[in-house]
């Protein structure tokens, strides 16, 4: 494997500045440095993406690892007709969906069974709801992250994965539709339902 020694951080600069599509072409030729940059760029995003399906951090990480390996093995087949991000997320989505089928882990949650909520913990949500620009203390931030994590985990898999693509990855609906192999209408419906469920779970029911 060709190695690009990176003793000097400046040696990384050429790769860091390159577009994904250029790096993939180098990966096809076995360029480790190019692959490392793509890995750094996408590891967090892919992990979160896979979490949307797997609902379990370790499983999500396993899927993310497998996605990178598939990306590497198929780098020579990538054609820049679609964006690289769409390509790799599509690989990840299919891996996750197949894995879920294998594991038969289709999590669903009934809206009639809301997640348990510590009355104290809703205060941070109420505070945010009043003014989302309000700064939070470190403790409040941790609480919020925990609440959001729990609420998102409780969403049905199709809603969760789609919502994460919108809210975390900021993907356009049409890209999401392409990645998941569904229609844009289906994307809209999933988003709508996910937000309704989250609103309920976070007790975001402020009345006029």
């Amino acid at each position, binding site marked *: 494997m060709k190695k690009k020694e990176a003793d000097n951080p400046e040696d990384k600069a050429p790769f860091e500045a390159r577009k994904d599509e250029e790096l993939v072409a180098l990966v096809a030729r076995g360029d480790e440095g190019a692959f490392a940059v793509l890995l750094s760029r996408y590891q967090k995003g892919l992990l979160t993406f896979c979490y949307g399906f797997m609902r379990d951090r370790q499983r999500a*990480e396993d899927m993310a*690892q497998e996605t*990178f390996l598939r990306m590497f093995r198929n*780098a020579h087949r990538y054609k820049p007709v679609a964006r690289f991000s769409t390509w790799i997320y599509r690989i990840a989505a299919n891996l996750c969906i197949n894995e879920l089928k294998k594991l038969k882990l289709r999590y669903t949650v009934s809206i009639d069974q809301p997640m348990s909520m510590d009355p104290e913990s809703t205060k941070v949500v109420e505070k*945010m709801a009043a003014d989302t620009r309000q700064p939070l203390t470190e403790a409040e931030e941790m609480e919020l992250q925990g609440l959001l994590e729990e609420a998102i985990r409780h969403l049905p898999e199709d809603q969760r994965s789609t919502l994460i693509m919108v*809210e975390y990855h900021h993907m356009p*609906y049409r890209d999401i539709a392409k990645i998941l192999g569904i229609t844009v209408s289906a994307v809209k419906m999933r988003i709508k339902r996910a937000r309704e469920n989250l609103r309920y779970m976070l007790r975001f029911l402020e009345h006029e």
Partner: protein
Amino acid sequence: MQVDCERIRQLLDPYLDQELTAEEISAVEQHLATCRRCAFESTQMLRLKEIIGRWKGPSPSSDLHEKVMGKVREDMRRSGTPLERYYRRVALAVTGGALTVLGLGILVFYVGFGTGGTATPDLGIGEAVAMAPAMPLETIARLEDLSGEGVQAIRPDGTITKLTPPASLKPDDILEVPEDATATVRVAGGRLIVGALAWQGKVPKKPPRGLTRMRFASPDAAYSLKRGTVRIIASGEGLGAIRIDTSAGIAYVPWEKRHNEHTRAVIYVGEGSVAIGVVAGEAGLLKGSVEERENLPIRKDELLEIELKESRAEGQAK
């Protein structure tokens, strides 16, 4: 464009996600300016979106980067770069080396059409390899997985689809078969080209020595193929037989007018468990299920089913 409250409820999410057209945005904002209830709802949804947007997602473990790099390095060490791997598959097909389908876990299918009536050029394997990428891909190969292990097709755009039988492959699909799995490939129409190996090899004048003849049993029979030694030879009744190129791949004899339902098929496994395809003449391959248990006859447009398995000959040998 006028929208009512009911319509606003449908448009609110895409509005917040900036997915509306300019006209729709204008209509929504006009309504929100005049409808207190919808305006309140919109504010609530916006706050919800902002709160959700603060979610940071799971953190990768500290060694994720190294783990992935390690796996890729190991992959490279075993198999070379992605491009080297691809070209090596072509080279193996040409040289008759061990293109072990199950060992590699990857079977590459390119499916081409028979020329339907026109004379097929008589090419050697080397020439066929050079031509293969340019061959028209017009036929779909059907995959039937009898193992239940799970076979996946990786499309050129990166989509990975688990194939549940009966499934269809498209041209340029890469078929990934788990180790020890059994995959049955059914080809309808045209030629099945394995890797870059097109089945337009020259017809040997006489069968090579030391090869084993095997008769096909029913389509569900599980034949295991011995490395480099199994050859199934059709024996027609004085009619043209479809022969095999002995060096590596599979050749076919163009279907001639004198061929009829008594002509048998010839399938050859080269060195190693070279993936097998069905070869037939220009008149097309077999279709439909094969019911005869012995001496498989091929009729025009009939479908022939071949099973790939571990490399151990089990069939009847002559």
